[in-house]
């Protein structure tokens, strides 16, 4: 909903009683969403639920000066989940003041920044912490406090970031929550490289820089980050959660420097994409204790490690397929981490394949089919997502995610796939937009 008329009344409300009325453009929009989630498999523990109802809302308020130079933007988000107390959360996705003058832009406050070009895995994207309880695909992010300065010259756009606070990653409720990753991470044991512990947010001096430009068919981004790793190392503690006997792990956030490159070539219907990162951080090495199962522990030896990762592939779209007016897009991307199986994430040597069909009808019907295959273990997972607008203001989304196969490498079971083998899910969401 857009209100282009100046809101003098607001100026009065804000207490500008003098004649100098403050004329502002105000934008208000948002959505309310009902979500029903079903997990067809029983959980590891009897307390784990199979059916979850949840309600979420996102509200956006923008105040803009008539010249457009000054803006205040607020985007709070909240969710209430019937069973998962960690998933019931509120977050200020954005809350910032922004100043624009020609090609110069500066902002202060909570914001979200996306970097990169690929679809399955976002490697260079590092500014915001993943909102891990909101969705499992990593696409949802927590608001990040920052001061940002950007200049968009004809020689490219240069943006600098000061990130004074770090926010930890949240995990589903260890007792009732799903998907349950077969471990428990307690917020109060969170450990930082400085040796400090605890806290959901921490005062830090993280910084980042990004350069971006388009050269004909090529869009190129270079980025550099010096700060707290967004992805923790999970440490074996030997403790177990009292309620359900799951191993209690400790999240360890190292300091990291990361250099990133992202390139997209847009050649007719082909989009060719590459993201690569080189990061340096002090890693804790795997604990030799068999009970630790390859995980490091608090007192593990440490080693400053350079990690090279890359992902890339193509997207090809058949536009107006057989003159039907519908489009069919094919995405294939390879994911690589030089540590392969030893990487603390499942994307060491994997292929992702996606098929996107868009009807281009008045209801914007679309179906997305995705598959991930681990080339080392042969594990595979599949996701299906279908969406359609209903009437003017509603949108329905049906989403299913399941592990297709838990594979093995040298007789060792794929630990990521195994952990999620019984965590398949079907989600239905109905959102009302205003």
């Amino acid at each position, binding site marked *: 909903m857009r209100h282009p008329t100046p809101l003098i009344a607001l100026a009065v409300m804000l207490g500008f009683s003098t004649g100098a009325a403050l004329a502002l453009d105000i934008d208000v*929009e948002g959505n309310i969403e009902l979500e029903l989630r079903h997990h067809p498999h029983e959980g590891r523990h009897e307390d784990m639920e199979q059916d979850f109802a949840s309600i979420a809302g996102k509200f956006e308020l923008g105040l803009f000066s008539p010249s457009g130079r000054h803006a205040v933007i607020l985007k709070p988000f909240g969710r209430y989940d019937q069973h998962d107390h960690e998933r019931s959360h509120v977050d200020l996705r954005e809350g910032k003041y922004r100043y624009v003058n020609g090609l110069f832009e500066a902002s202060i406050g909570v914001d979200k920044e996306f970097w990169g070009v690929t679809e399955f895995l976002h490697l260079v994207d590092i500014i915001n912490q993943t909102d891990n309880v909101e969705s499992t695909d990593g696409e949802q992010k927590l608001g990040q406090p920052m001061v940002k300065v950007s200049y*968009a010259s004809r020689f490219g756009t240069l943006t600098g970031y000061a990130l004074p606070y770090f926010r930890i990653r949240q995990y589903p409720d260890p007792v009732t929550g799903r998907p349950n990753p077969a471990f428990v991470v307690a917020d109060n044991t969170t450990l930082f490289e400085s040796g400090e512990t605890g806290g959901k947010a921490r005062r830090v001096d993280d910084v980042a820089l990004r350069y971006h430009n388009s050269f004909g068919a090529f869009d190129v981004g270079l980025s550099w980050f010096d700060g707290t790793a967004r992805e923790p190392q999970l440490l074996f503690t030997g403790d177990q959660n009292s309620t359900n006997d799951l191993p209690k792990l400790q999240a360890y956030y190292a300091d990291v420097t990361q250099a990133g490159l992202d390139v997209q070539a847009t050649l007719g219907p082909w989009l060719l994409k590459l993201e690569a990162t080189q990061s340096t951080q002090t890693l804790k090495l795997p604990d030799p204790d068999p009970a630790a199962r390859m995980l490091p522990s608090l007192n593990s030896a440490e080693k400053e490690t350079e990690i090279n990762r890359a992902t890339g592939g193509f997207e090809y779209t058949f*536009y107006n397929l057989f003159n039907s007016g519908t489009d069919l897009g094919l995405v294939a991307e390879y994911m690589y981490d030089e540590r392969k199986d030893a990487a603390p994430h499942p994307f060491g040597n994997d292929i992702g394949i996606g098929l996107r069909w868009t009807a281009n009808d008045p209801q914007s019907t679309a179906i997305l089919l995705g598959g991930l295959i681990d080339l080392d273990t042969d594990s595979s997972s599949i996701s299906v997502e279908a969406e359609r607008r209903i009437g003017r203001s509603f949108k329905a989304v049906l989403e299913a995610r399941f592990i297709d196969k838990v594979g093995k490498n040298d007789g060792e079971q794929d630990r990521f796939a195994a952990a999620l083998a019984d965590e398949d899910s079907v989600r239905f969401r109905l959102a009302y937009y205003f």
Partner: protein
Amino acid sequence: MSFNLNLTKITTISATLAGLLLSGPALAERAGLPGADQPEARGKAIAEITDATNLGFGNTTSEMEMVLTNANGDVSERRLRFNTLENKDVTDGDWSMMIFDEPADVAGTAMMTYAHILDPDEQWMYLPALKRVKRISSVNKSGPFMGSEFAFEDFSSQEVGKYSYKWLRDEPCGEFTCHVVERRPLYKHSGYTRTVAWTDTTHYQNRKVVYYDRKNALLKTLTFDDYQQYLDKYWRAHELFMENHVTKKKTLLRWEDYAFQTGLSADDFTQNSLKRAR
């Protein structure tokens, strides 16, 4: 996706003026226009005159309502805003920004286009939910725009160099006399073998366009209405009606709040501006 269509640059003149112009048998032919014995040159010259009527418009902002009607009569609506910057380099296309307001679930989505003549356009899409700018392929010419009966190419900047021309005839068209000119797309991936445009001989603006599909079968007809003149020079049609003869679906575009020379500059067509679009 420059929205400064030459398609919209239809002239309207008062009925009296039209009557005067059409009354005499000695209908004034535009000086220098090649004759009927050179149909290709005559067709191209007509397109060049049309193009010249829009020269120097600078920049515009406008809003558009789109009403989609299917064969059963069901109606759905969209609202968009457009910012357009004229490219001072006449050998290149215009820059434009398109911002979606309705339906509400796509509000804030925006698309920026640097149009070119025969080279593919450069296009970026901003997805507000992810705050992601994505460079997209501009190959999609023939697909439907937002589920409407307009194809993407119908919205593209209609630069003279994008077509070859052949004048067919002159004939009365409503209160005007029109040149009837066949255009064949020279750019790749078009959904049409040809289009036929009726351009009035008074102000050299298009009045009707008929589209023929890849098999050269009649596909759809676009008509223009409610023309208004800006800055005493630039004409814009405020109602464009597209009727698909095959699917029987219809789309009405209703333009509102055209503003010229609004102070837009190249600074307002960067990826940072695309992210700020609202």
